[in-house]
C-alpha cells in the first residue's frame, strides 16, 4: 500500500492517490478542484440528498484525473460514520459520454474499524456501486444490499457517503 503523498481534504484524507489513480484509471496526472458550497447550494444539495450536510461541509474537494490531455474521471473521498468509527471511502467516477452524467467507476474503503470488514470491503458489496449515477438513490437495502446482516449501519454509512459525493459533484458541476 502506498503512502506517497497523503492528500487532506476538508472531509477525509486521500491516503493513496498514486496507487488509486494507476489502478483505477491507469492515468498519469490529476488536479485538485475546490468547490465552495454556498447557503443556496447547501439547500439544493440537501433537498436532493434528503439529509442535511454536516456543519463543516462548506467546501468539497474533487480530484480530476487525466490521461495525457484526456479527462478520464474524478475522485473524491469522504468519512462515513460507521459502527466503530470513521470509514474512509474513496469514490472514483467517470463521464458516461456526457459531462453532466457521471457514473461510479469504483468505490474503495481505504480505512475502517468495522467488525465485518471483509464483507464491507468485498466486491459483492462495493461492486454494487459500479455503473450507478445521480439517478440511483443508493439506499440500503432497497438499491444496495448490505454487506451482511450484521453490518447494516456500516453499509448505510458507506452508501450515504457515496451518494453524497455523487450528488455534490453532479450539482456543483452542472449548476
Amino acid at each position, binding site marked *: *500500500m*502506498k*503512502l*506517497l*503523498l497523503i492528500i*487532506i481534504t*476538508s472531509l477525509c484524507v486521500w491516503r493513496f492517490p*498514486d496507487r488509486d*489513480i*494507476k489502478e483505477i484509471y491507469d*492515468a*498519469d*496526472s*490529476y*488536479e*485538485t478542484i*475546490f468547490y465552495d458550497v454556498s447557503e443556496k447550494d447547501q439547500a439544493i444539495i440537501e433537498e436532493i440528498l434528503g439529509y442535511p450536510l*454536516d*456543519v*463543516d461541509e462548506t*467546501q468539497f474537494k474533487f480530484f480530476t484525473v*487525466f490521461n495525457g*490531455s484526456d479527462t478520464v474521471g474524478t475522485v473524491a473521498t469522504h*468519512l462515513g*460514520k*460507521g*459502527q*466503530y*468509527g*470513521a470509514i474512509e471511502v474513496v469514490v472514483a467516477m467517470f463521464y458516461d459520454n456526457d459531462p453532466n452524467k457521471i457514473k461510479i467507476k469504483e468505490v474503495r474503503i481505504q*480505512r475502517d*474499524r*468495522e*467488525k465485518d*470488514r*471483509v464483507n464491507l470491503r468485498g466486491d459483492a458489496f462495493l461492486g454494487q456501486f459500479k455503473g450507478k449515477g445521480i439517478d440511483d438513490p443508493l439506499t440500503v437495502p432497497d438499491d444496495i444490499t448490505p454487506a451482511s446482516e450484521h453490518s447494516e449501519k456500516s453499509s448505510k454509512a458507506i452508501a450515504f457517503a457515496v451518494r453524497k459525493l455523487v450528488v455534490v459533484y453532479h450539482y456543483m458541476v452542472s449548476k
Partner: protein
Amino acid sequence: MIARIDTRFNEELFFRVSKSDVEPFSMNLMAAEIILNSNVRSSKRDILSLVFQVYVLGTMRGWAKAMHQGNAYIIVPTGLGKPSIKLGQQVIPFGLLAWYDTHGKVFQNPYSLAIGERIDAGITVQGILGPVDWWYMISNGNGPNVKDPDDNKVQTARFALDHSIGLIDMRVGFSILRGVLPEFTQDPLAIMMVEPDSLIMKNRVCIDGEFTYTYFNIIYEVIYGIQGSLVSMFNNMEQGAIGGYIEVHVPLSYSIELKGMYSRWQPRIDQPLSHNVWGAGVRIVPETFSMMTLQVMGLIRDEPMRKSKGVIAQVNVSL
C-alpha cells in the same frame, strides 16, 4: 503555466483542564492556531501545495511549543508514481512521527527524549519503491524557527510496508536517524521551559507499526540508540539508549473509544533510571459534531526527577 491557486484556512483550538498531585487544578488554552493550506495547479496537474501552521494564542512555551508548533512547508509533486519533495519546517519522518500525528493528543510517544525535537527545518524526498514507501530527510537538528548555527545536519530515513489480509491491517516501518540533536534530562513535554542539557550526536534506529484487527487497534514503536560517533559504539556500549511506545485503541461505538498507552525511555542502558508514562482514558467524538473531540486521560509519570499522577481533560475543536 499556473491555472489556479486555491487557499483555505482551518482554525483549531485545544483547551485543557488538568489536575495532578504535583500541580494545581488548572485550565489552559494550549493553543489556538490557524492552518493555511494552498494548492497551486496548472491546467492538468497539481504543481505545489503550501501549508502554514500559525500559532495565534495559548500557553505553550519553550521546547514543548517548538515540538508542536512551526510547520511551514511546501510539497512539490514531480508526477504520479514519482518522488515528491517537501521543503521547509516539518515533522521528522522517524518512527511513529512519520505517520501518527501526535499534535493535539494527550498521549505522546517518547520522541522528545529519544530524538529531542519533532519539527525541524529541512528537505524531505519521499516516494515508492515497489510495495515500499520511503522517506529521506536532511535537516538542521535545531527545531523550528532557529537559524542553523553549524554544519551539523540530521539525516533521517524510513521505509514502510502496509499489508491487509482478511480482518487484519498491518503496517511496519523501519527508521534510522543520525545527527546532532538536543538531549533532555527532563521531558520538555511535561516541563515546558526545560532547556536541553546538551547537543549530542545521536544515532537511532526504530521499528514502528500498526496492527488493526477489525475494530481493535495497536500502534507501537521500539527505539534503540547510541550516543556519540558510530565507532564508539563498539568500545563503549554503555552509551546505548532504549525506549518504546505502545498505544491501544478499543472503540465502543462511533463516538466513544477507550485508549491506553505505555511510554518508556531509558537514556543509558547501563543505568536503571528511566522515564515511564502510563495512560488510560476515553476519547469522545460527537456523531453530529465530529469536528469536536474530548479526551479524558489519566496519566502516571515515573521519571527520574518527576513522579506524578494526574488527570487531563482536553477539548479539541477543528473548523
